[in-house]
């Protein structure tokens, strides 16, 4: 069974981003970049499936500029077998990425595509579902547990009210939530080995996909700042403030 894992290059989760003074976006100059944390969980899950003997090959795919190779190397160091970079300097939106991945899937014929549930930059949470729609296959978002048996995937999903279990025909698209697993650290020997693993390059045009952004960015602004508060000395003072100053509890 072949597994594809799409990975995204994003600002490192520990970086606090700043909005550019001209409101044209966030400042990404000299900012540390990393593999999107949810994509990392997706890679880990695919590698575990291979270690269990369920998957036979794990293919990492990224769509973006040349430097996305760094994140593909991270995926290879975590245990993916090979990588595909779909190179483009254009700003790609989720629907474009889903179309590119659909074209890859048409060639690769994977049984399972594991996505991160969202990326921590744009917070869209769309690509996995869009891919599943274009490929006409089943989907399970917010996966907390994934089991493959008898040609089906059983997925426990984190939903608003608790946990939901669904069964999917394969091929299927699954999007990884936080508690699906805890990704391993890539060991130094594996990082070295990853440098020799195959990385193919292609482009949206070669795959027959036209990049067509539908949304334009008008402006980006910092969020409203909260006023600094006060430190109270006692529970009694706190209750008094809540009743008489903030008036959020009945006095």
């Amino acid at each position, binding site marked *: 069974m072949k597994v594809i894992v799409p990975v995204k290059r994003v600002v490192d989760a520990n970086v*606090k981003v700043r909005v550019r003074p001209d409101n044209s976006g*966030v400042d990404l100059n000299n900012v540390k970049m990393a593999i999107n944390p949810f994509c990392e969980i997706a890679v880990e899950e695919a590698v575990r499936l291979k270690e269990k003997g369920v998957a036979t090959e794990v293919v990492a795919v990224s769509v973006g500029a040349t430097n996305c190779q760094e994140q593909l190397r991270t995926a290879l160091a975590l245990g993916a077998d090979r990588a595909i970079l779909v190179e483009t300097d254009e700003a790609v939106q989720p629907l474009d990425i889903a179309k590119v991945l659909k074209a890859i899937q048409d060639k690769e014929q994977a049984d399972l595509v594991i996505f991160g549930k969202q990326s921590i930059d744009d917070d869209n949470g769309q690509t996995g579902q869009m891919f599943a729609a274009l490929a006409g296959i089943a989907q399970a978002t917010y996966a907390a547990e994934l089991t493959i048996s008898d040609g089906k995937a059983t997925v426990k999903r*984190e939903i608003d009210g*608790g946990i939901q279990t669904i*069964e999917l025909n394969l091929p299927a698209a699954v999007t990884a939530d936080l508690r699906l697993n805890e990704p391993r650290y890539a060991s130094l020997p594996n990082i070295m080995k990853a440098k020799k693993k195959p990385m193919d390059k292609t482009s949206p045009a070669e795959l027959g996909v036209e990049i067509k952004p539908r949304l334009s960015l008008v402006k*980006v602004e910092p969020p409203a700042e909260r006023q600094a508060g006060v430190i109270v000395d006692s529970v009694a003072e706190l*209750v008094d403030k*809540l009743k008489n100053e903030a008036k*959020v*509890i009945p006095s």
Partner: protein
Amino acid sequence: MSVLVIADHDNSELQSATLNTVTAATQIGGDVSVLVAGSDCGGVAEAAAKIDGVSKVLVADNAAYANQLAENMALLIAEVGKDYSHILAAATTNGKNYSPRVAALLDVAQISEITGVVDADTFVRPIYAGNAMATVKSSDSIKVITVRGTGFDAAAQEGGSATVESLDSVHDAGLSSFVGAELVKSDRPELTSAKVVVSGGRGMGSGDNFKLLDGIADKLNAAIGASRAAVDAGFVPNDMQVGQTGKIVAPDLYIAIGISGAIQHLAGMKDSKVIVAINKDEEAPIFQVADYGLVADLFEAVPELDQAL
């Protein structure tokens, strides 16, 4: 212009997030219709017809929609929605599950978790866990949107008298099936719509200790939430998580107890009107967003607060 709102519900009750979504729809303008897809969901359709501002309710009552499976829902919504200028769903786990699928079927973009409507094509949405607010403009003929409840007031549950129309179109993609659900039952208000939220973090020390929060929650009619650290530690179930990847809340009063205030937690609650933090670590980042901070051992302060209320 006409807006289709997809109702979020469990076949017996309409989720309150749908009311906030209707408000977003009325801000966009034009006729507002609500699609109720489910099984034995007549009560939900009646409730939807009473929402102020809704002119038409469309009901697709069939076993195929009983569990809101994305494959079936998306086929139905794309079919019904192609005649509308906007398709809106609440940014709940249901809405976020099927909306991108609908957008792809219609070959349009999806705009996630809007918190503001500028005009019929232009919307405001948080990016980078709420550390920046983006204004985006869509060039698509149909806008598929998910709506973050905290950005919009709830529409009135009474006052409307929409017509109710049955749809007989059945889409069963046959790709997935519902196996079961473990849902947490609670008599407390729902986390995302409660006026008061009391949340515990890793500082609570154990799942049992969360019972300490019950007294305060009872007295304030509050929902109980948790930080990701408390959920990851297994103290409480995932549906209680407040944060970037959990629930986004903006109550009148948010009381954070034993929560340090990681960026991803702040992303889920920093739009609350009044924030109270109780933590024994005076350096905890939560104090930087709190209106009232109390540096204290929660195991002493919480029972004292319970007494004082």
